[in-house]
């Protein structure tokens, strides 16, 4: 049975999963969830994702939520097809740990701050609420510090976990692109190594295909 992705066409976490499905050449049926109608809070949805969030997958009866977990599951299940090495092989536990280091950093050092900016400057504005500029400034200050570290790391290696692309790199894309939408692309563009790395991720066919919205491939 074809894998089903229950998601919103342009939500950050949904895009994160869709990109991995494309990287691994996994056909999927996209079932759109209407966030404006709060479909994700209805019983039919919360029965599968009790946090009332998107996305979740149904892989022939196996239900999984949390976009980063879904991406990992897909990368492991389809290790033998599509882009190789999105998670390093378990036989190389040092490479695996460097991947985990980068993956942990993605959330704790990048998303935590980038998500605040996206929430204040994009989400709230769309709903007609005022932006808290102090929160935005705090997040920008933090991101500046963190991205300086990224600049150093990416000056020595092509990707965050080493010389090979992994999920840890790809997971930055959804909120990275939100920074540009919020008028803060300079945070990335002003750092040559970070800019080169980020643009290489955006150029990947898997991102180009989904960046304007997710559609079924099966």
């Amino acid at each position: 049975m074809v894998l089903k992705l229950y998601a919103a066409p342009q939500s950050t976490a949904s895009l994160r999963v869709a990109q991995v499905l494309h990287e691994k050449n996994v056909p999927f049926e996209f079932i759109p969830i209407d966030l404006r109608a709060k479909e994700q809070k209805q019983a039919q949805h919360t029965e599968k994702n009790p946090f009332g969030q998107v996305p979740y997958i149904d892989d022939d009866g196996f239900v999984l939520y949390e976009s980063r977990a879904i991406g990992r599951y897909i990368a492991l299940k389809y290790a033998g097809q599509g882009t190789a090495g999105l998670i390093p092989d378990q036989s190389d536990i040092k490479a695996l740990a460097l991947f985990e280091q980068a993956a942990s950093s993605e959330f704790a050092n990048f998303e935590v701050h980038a998500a605040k900016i996206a929430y204040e400057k994009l989400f709230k504005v769309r709903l007609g609420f005022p932006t808290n500029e102090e929160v935005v400034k705090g997040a920008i200050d933090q991101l500046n510090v963190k991205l300086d570290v990224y600049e150093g790391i990416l000056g020595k290696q092509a990707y965050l976990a080493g010389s090979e692309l992994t999920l840890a790199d790809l997971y930055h894309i959804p909120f990275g692109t939100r920074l540009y939408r919020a008028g803060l692309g300079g945070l990335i563009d002003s750092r040559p190594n970070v800019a080169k790395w980020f643009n290489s991720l955006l150029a990947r066919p898997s991102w180009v295909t989904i960046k304007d919205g997710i559609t079924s491939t099966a």
Partner: protein
Amino acid sequence: MVLTLVGSPISTCTKRVVAVFLEKQVPFKFVPIDFTKGEHKAPAFMEKQPFGQVPYLDDDGYIIYESRAICRYIAEKYADQGTPLFPTDLKAKGLFEQAASIEQSNFDVYASKAAYEAVFKPNLGLVTDKSVVDSLIKQLEQKLDVYEQILSKQKYLAGDELTLADLFHLPYGALLPAVGSNAIQERPNVARWFNSLTERPSWKAVKDGIVVTA
């Protein structure tokens, strides 16, 4: 050569790692860092941990930072000894990753910030913003209501077996009373689950500070 953990004896993230060392019965050398002297921002330190944070692990010259990554590395490397903390089956791994992601985005996000605001800031001579703490706790409570549901059907967050995902909650979960929140104890299944974690010898050994075994 024995594993060396460089961290702070009272740091939440350092405790997270040491608890896993103890679960896996792995001896290690502990090198304490003094925050008050800014040792974590010194060039020699930042050469190993470029974000200037604790802890980091030195395994005979191989350096790993980010506490959850260190925990995963230890659990993988010493899979055959101590408490099993990682499933091997693909679907069980998926459910483990789901639980680990839940811990980061639905628990830590609120609990760690509340701890910073209510507990760490006063230690640094800064003033707590109570409205920030209240808002974070309110959001955390909504998430813990979902935990309550999940834990009514299964023993641990990834299923019926203990995994790293459960243990990751310990350092900030244990600080919630100091933040002024009883949210865990107010929810019977969450309380049952969390108390089973804090009762483990590995947590009892670290909760008041780190001691060395090697």
